[in-house]
C-alpha cells in the first residue's frame, strides 16, 4: 500500500473503531468526575451490546431502517438502569467502588448470556441482525483531496454521534451548572454539600449517565461489528475505554482523542500486514501496543494524569 492508501484506510477505520470507546469512556468521565470509580464499564457495555442486538432482532419489522438507532435508545435506557446496581452499591451501600465494578462486569456478562440462552432456546449466541448501520460519504466534502477520503468518505453515523456527544459532554461538564456541581462533588463532596448540592443525587445521575453511554457504546459495537451477541462480543473494549478515559485525563475531549489514538494503533496493526517493514514485526508487538502505550502514558511520559480527588470515597455526611 502506498502511504496515502495507508492513511485512507487507517483514519476512517480508526474513527470507526473509536466510536464505541469514545461513548463508553465519556460515560466513565461522568461517573469518575462525580467521585465514583467505574471499573464496571465493560459489564455495562456488554449489557448495551446485548440489548442492542435483542431490540434490533425483535423490532426490525416495526422500525425498518431506523431500527439500529432506536436500539441505541433501548440500550441507553437499559444501560442506565443496569448502572443503578453500581450506584446503589457504591453510593448508598458504601461498597468499595472498584469491587462493585468487578461485580458489575461479572453480572453484565452472566446476565446477558443467561438471557440469551433463555430467549434463544439454549443457544450461546443470538441470531444475526438484519438492520445495520450503514456508512455513507458526505457529498462534496468527500471529494476534497486528501482530507475527503480520510474523514468524509466512509463515515458512520455512529462516529458522528460519538464526536457530537464528546463535544456535548464537554459543554455539560465545563459550562453548565450541572457540570460545575458534578465536578465539585467529585473533588470535595462536603464542600458541595454545605453549598446545598445534593451529593448523592448527583452521583446517582452521573453513574446512570455512564451506564447509558456505555450501553450505547456496547450497542454500537455489537450492531456495527459483530451483528450478533455472544460471550465473545465484548472482550475488553470496556477496559480499553477505561484506559482511554485515564489517558484522556478525565476530560471528554481528551477521552475522545485517546479513543481515536487506540483506534489508530488497532488499524495500524491491521494495515501493518501490507506495509513494508511493519509486516516483518511479529504480530504480538502490534497486539500489545495499545496496552503498552497506555502504561507509558500513565507513567507520565505523556503528561501526568490526576484523578478527581474524591473518587473512590463514599460520601458520608459529616465525616471529615
Amino acid at each position: 500500500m502506498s502511504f496515502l492508501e495507508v492513511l485512507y484506510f487507517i483514519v476512517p477505520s480508526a474513527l470507526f473503531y473509536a466510536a464505541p470507546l469514545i461513548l463508553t469512556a465519556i460515560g466513565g468521565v461522568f461517573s469518575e468526575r462525580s467521585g465514583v470509580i467505574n471499573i464496571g464499564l465493560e459489564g455495562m457495555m456488554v449489557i448495551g451490546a446485548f440489548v442492542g442486538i435483542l431490540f434490533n432482532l425483535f423490532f426490525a419489522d416495526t422500525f425498518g431502517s431506523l431500527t439500529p438507532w432506536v436500539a441505541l435508545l433501548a440500550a441507553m435506557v437499559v444501560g442506565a438502569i443496569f448502572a443503578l446496581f453500581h450506584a446503589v452499591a457504591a453510593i448508598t451501600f458504601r461498597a468499595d467502588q472498584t469491587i462493585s465494578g468487578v461485580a458489575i462486569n461479572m453480572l453484565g456478562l452472566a446476565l446477558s448470556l443467561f438471557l440469551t440462552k433463555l430467549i434463544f432456546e439454549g443457544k450461546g449466541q443470538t441470531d444475526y441482525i438484519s438492520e445495520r448501520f450503514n456508512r455513507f460519504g458526505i457529498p462534496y466534502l468527500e471529494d476534497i483531496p486528501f482530507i475527503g477520503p480520510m474523514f468524509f468518505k466512509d463515515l458512520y453515523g455512529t462516529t458522528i454521534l460519538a464526536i457530537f456527544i464528546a463535544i456535548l459532554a464537554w459543554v455539560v461538564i465545563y459550562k453548565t451548572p450541572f457540570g460545575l456541581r458534578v465536578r465539585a462533588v467529585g473533588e470535595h463532596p462536603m464542600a458541595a454539600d454545605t453549598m446545598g448540592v445534593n451529593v448523592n443525587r448527583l452521583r446517582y445521575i452521573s453513574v446512570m449517565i455512564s451506564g447509558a453511554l456505555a450501553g450505547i457504546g456496547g450497542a454500537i459495537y455489537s450492531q456495527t461489528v459483530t451483528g450478533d451477541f455472544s460471550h465473545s462480543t465484548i472482550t475488553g473494549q470496556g477496559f480499553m475505554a477505561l484506559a482511554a478515559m485515564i489517558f484522556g485525563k478525565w476530560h471528554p475531549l481528551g477521552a475522545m482523542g485517546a479513543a481515536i489514538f487506540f483506534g489508530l494503533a488497532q488499524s495500524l496493526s491491521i494495515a501493518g500486514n501490507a506495509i513494508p517493514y511493519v509486516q516483518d514485526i511479529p504480530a504480538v508487538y502490534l497486539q500489545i501496543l495499545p496496552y503498552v502505550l497506555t502504561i507509558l502514558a500513565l507513567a507520565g511520559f505523556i503528561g501526568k494524569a490526576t484523578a478527581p480527588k474524591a473518587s473512590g470515597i463514599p460520601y458520608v455526611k459529616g465525616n471529615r
Partner: protein
Amino acid sequence: MSNRTVNILVPAISVVLGLIVGAIVMLVSGYSPVAGYSALIEGIFGDSYRIGETIRQITPYILAGLAVAFGFKAGLFNIGVEGQLIVGWFAAAYVGMAFDELPKLIHLPLAILAAAAAGAIWGLIPGLLKAHLRVHEVIVTIMMNYIALYTVNGLIKYISGGKEKLDPIQETATLRSPMLEALTDFSRLHWGILIAIAMVAVMWFIMEKSTLGFELKSVGFNLHASEYAGMNVKKNIVLAMVISGAFAGLGGAMEALGTFGYVSSKGAFTGIGFDGIAVALLGANNPIGVVFGATLFGALKNGSLNMPSAAGVPLEIVNIVIAIIIFFVASGYVIRLVLSRLSNKKGGETK
C-alpha cells in the same frame, strides 16, 4: 454482637442472599430452583470424582485469592492476578517441558519456582511504576493482563514452531498423582492443594508474625506516616506486588503442572484471577478466610457444570450468584448496619 461474629456473619449472609437471588432468577425464568440447586450440589459432592474435581478447582482459587488478599493488605489492588497467573502457567509448563533427565526432586520444584518467578516479575512492573512514578496499580495491572495474554500466546507459537500449544510437561515435573486419581475415580485432583495450603500458612506468617508484614500493613494503611516512621515505602510497595504476583504465578503452576500438564494459546482469560478478587473479598483478605472463599467459589464453579445437563439451567446462573455475593460482601456496611440495629433492639429488650 462481637466484631468477630459480624465479620463472619457478613459473608455468610451475603452468600445466602446471593443464592436467594439466584433462586429468584431461576424461578422468574421458568426454571426450577430446586432442580437447579440439586444439580449444583450433586455436581459438587455427588461422588468421589466430583469431590476430587471440586478440590482441584479450589486449588488455583486459593492461590489467586491469596494474591489479591496480599495486595489488599498492603493497600494495593492487584487486578493483574489474571495476567500473573497466565505467565506463571506458561513458565511452569515451559520448564516442565524443556528439561528432561532431571530428577523429580529438582525438576518439579524448579518448575514451581519458575511460575512464582514469572508471576513475581509480572507484579514487579506495576510495583515499580507505583512506587517510583506513582502510577495507579489498578489500570496498569489491567493492561498487564492483556499484555500477558498476547505475549504468552506469542511465545507458545514461537517456541512450538507455529503450534498453538507446547508439548506436555515431563513426568518429572508433574503434580499429578495416580494415587489421588485412583482415589477419586480419575478426577484431576493433584498435589497442588498441599502447595496452596502451604502458601496460606506463608501468607499468614508474613502478615501476622513477621516484621515485614507489619511494614506492609502500615504502608497499606498510610504510606505517608510509614515514610515518616522511616520505612522504605517504595521497597514495600514493590515487594508487596512481587509477593502477590508470586502467589498468582503459583496459581498458574497448579494449572500447568497439575490440571492440564501443558500450556496452550488462550483465546480469552481464564477468569481465575478475576474470581480471585471475589475469593479474597469473601475471605476478608485473611488467609484462612481465603480458603473458605476459594472453597465456596471453587465448589460453585465446578458444580455449575452439572446444571445444564442435569437440570437444563444455563450455567451462567452461577456467575450471576457469584456477582451478587460480591455485591453484598462489598456492601458489608449495610449488612452491618442492619445487624447492629437488630442486635441493639435485642440488647434493649434484655436490659
